[in-house]
């Protein structure tokens, strides 16, 4: 019953940002989250960053340019999480 990171992310996005009229499965994995697409904005990005930290224990980069790449889509976020978790040693 283990879900993919992508599916967890979609749920997290809908819950964190209280997107009442969007269902997790409607979010396209590779579609841009900000600007067009879901139309999220910078404040949403901040709230999402907090939720990601809580759920996956990952932190965003000290460079907003890189953060923009990370937060581009569900896929880029999932890649980033896998990368950060891979580099950590699980207890």
């Amino acid at each position, binding site marked *: *019953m*283990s*879900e993919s990171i992508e599916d*967890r992310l979609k749920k997290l996005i809908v819950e964190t*940002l*209280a*997107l*009442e*009229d969007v269902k997790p499965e409607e979010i396209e994995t590779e579609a841009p989250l*900000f600007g067009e697409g879901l*139309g*999220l*904005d*910078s*404040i*949403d*990005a*901040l*709230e999402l*960053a*907090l939720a990601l*930290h809580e759920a996956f224990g990952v*932190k*965003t*980069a*000290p*460079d*907003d340019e890189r*953060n923009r790449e990370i937060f581009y889509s569900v896929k880029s976020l999932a890649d980033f999480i896998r990368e950060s978790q891979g580099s950590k040693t*699980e*207890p």
Partner: protein
Amino acid sequence: MAGESAVRRGRAPRLALRLLASFSILSYPLLVYFGLRRYGLRPLALLLLLAFLPNLLLRRSATRGSGLALLAWLPLLSALLLLGSAYFRSLGWMLALPSMTNLLLLSAFGLTLWRGPPMIERFARLQDPDLDGPRQRWCLRWTQIWCGFFFLNGLMAALFALFSPLFWWTLHTSVLGYAGMGALLAAEWWMRKHRFPPEGRARARAFLDGRRGEISMNPLGLLRAHAPDSPVAFGAGGEKSASDLREDAARIAQALPEASEGSHVLLVLKEDRYAMAAALLGVWQRGHAVALPPNTRREAILRVRERPEVVAVVHDTGAGLPLRIEELLASPPARQAKPASFSFDAETPLATLFTSASTGASQAQGKNARQLLGEARLLAEHFGIGPGARIVATVSPLHIYGLLFGVLLPLCCGGAFLRETPLHAEAISQRLVAHRGEVLVTVPVHLRALEQLDAKSLPPSLRRVFSSAGPLSDEVATRFIEAQQVDITELLGSTETGGIAYRSRRSGERWQPLPGISVQSDPEGHLLVHSPFLASAGPFRSADLAEMYEDGSFTHLGRSDGIVKIAGRRVSLAEMEEWLRRHPGVDDAALLALPTDRERGHLLLAAISPATAPVAELKEYLLERFDASCLPKRLLALESLPREANGKLPRQALLRVFDLQEDGEPLLCELRWGERMRTPEGYRLRLQVPRHYIGFEGHFPGYPLLPAATQLEAIVFPATERIWGSRARAEALRAMQQLKFSGRILPGDALELRLAPAAQQVHFEIRKGDALCSSGILVFDAPLDHG
């Protein structure tokens, strides 16, 4: 500024204390000389200690002067010396006080030489905030002279105390030392009279009083506290000096059309704060005012651009319009070597800001030089931000808060700002560390991110944090202040009034009016603002509701109009409703704003008719005009809205549409967790379901109970994950067995969650008192260790 209100409350007794205090300090040597013969050493020490009591009592309020904080230790030091003298029966301790006083003064003045600005410059700026280079050097020299004097005076006092009869010590410390100080003061005063002409003082005072009239100043006078090579901007794009800024402003000025009566240049500059500063100065130098859009959405920009007074647009967007900022800054330097210097007075219009208004139309707010620059200066002075200050802002300079604090304040006080606008917590702290940031200008949502993601990583250089544009929760404020050891100064203001009041989060709830501003409340509880920075003479009746206290401070009780703040932006409900109704697929629209406990502020829900309205398309349509953060989180299409016969739509009816009830409490997004206990079986966790919890929303119309899925997602899994880590989270679940949801969980319930692990299973129970609400067995993929 708790001290200030204390002064106001008890003026007369405090004055008496102050006189006594001054008397005991000035006459100390004589008291020692004559008292010693009469009373002997020990009784005299104790008597003097008594005479110094007023000083000890006054200690707190004496610290208010900038740079002289060290002197606040003087009373304590005197008390220690006197106690020492009595205890060791030693005259030396008693005689050491004048030397120590000089040493303290030397340290106070010397520290300002090292840290800047020099002490005398701080005094001089109280008279005239406009200090140019030569006068700054003069102040530096005099601070050094004073340091020399304190050193010599202290040394002499020490030598007399150690090696000569008491008479000579007394003569030196009671007469000669003060005579020397008087002579030096007279010399400084005489020279200052010539260096600081009275018109400069009058001008400064007029600015502070907000008096109209004879205030003439050069637009580039903004940069007068900077030396030509002082930095004005730093960051990813490289450091820029004051002279770079003058040159770039001249480049921009020469590319602009000629000014006419009331002409404006629209600025749409989102990326680089330095470009924004250069554009502001360039536009003003050319004789125009700037127009700033309410947000950077296409439709919003177009609406401002279409106004007849807007003659040009300077922008950094991808649009193919003329006057792209990169091209202007890369153009050859302006022909005149020095930019034309001409004066404009306090009433010259400098900017028009567009904001959302409760009527639905966007509202233009004009600002003149007195309002923009006078306020920026006053803020810099009041908060002690001076030359060399390094300011990092996380807010856009297109809004009044970001414009004043992020751009104009540093330009007015000789400081420098970060060029880019960092967004994420790590990016903000990285910039603060890399650029030794001293002042952070931000909003609550960034403080929450910093507090949660990046505790303890802000540099020690950070000495002031400003937060505005929305309520900052106590929880975030307390944790942030504790972790970073820096206070948060919250500001209350509006586009119409500029800054109104501030409060320090360390010292409590009440707002203190900013200097020059006074507030009252009218019979309906509205805040009436008297401010020199208002457009008209009378008080401004703000939509803020307030409760006043006798000392002029107040508590803020919210707003009374249809404007809500979402993520720090003002959103007019009427404007958004009107915009929705204009869509061809929409007949009627109504918005509901719910206060939440999140930093975002309010949450918007929209009801529209008819039921066939194109909900998905409407989101795109709203984005043409509104920021994404302000969009309704829910668009509910109904056959018709529950309007009354007169067309009114009561809030209660609208709440019913969304299955909500209101009790005045904010909508809460988090459960309140209480204590966690270990038991032989496993764990017990207490929790409270807020009465207005978001999990109740909309699942069972008119009947708020916590759905089974929410119980698992919001209560059980967060707890198992917190205890056993990633092996016990929802995603690691293999199966659920024997699930029972037998009792209802209602708003306000106090619950207990019991967890009993066994190998890879957890048995859970949610109880309300003795009643079992739900229970079941969770089977995870891997065995759990016992936490």
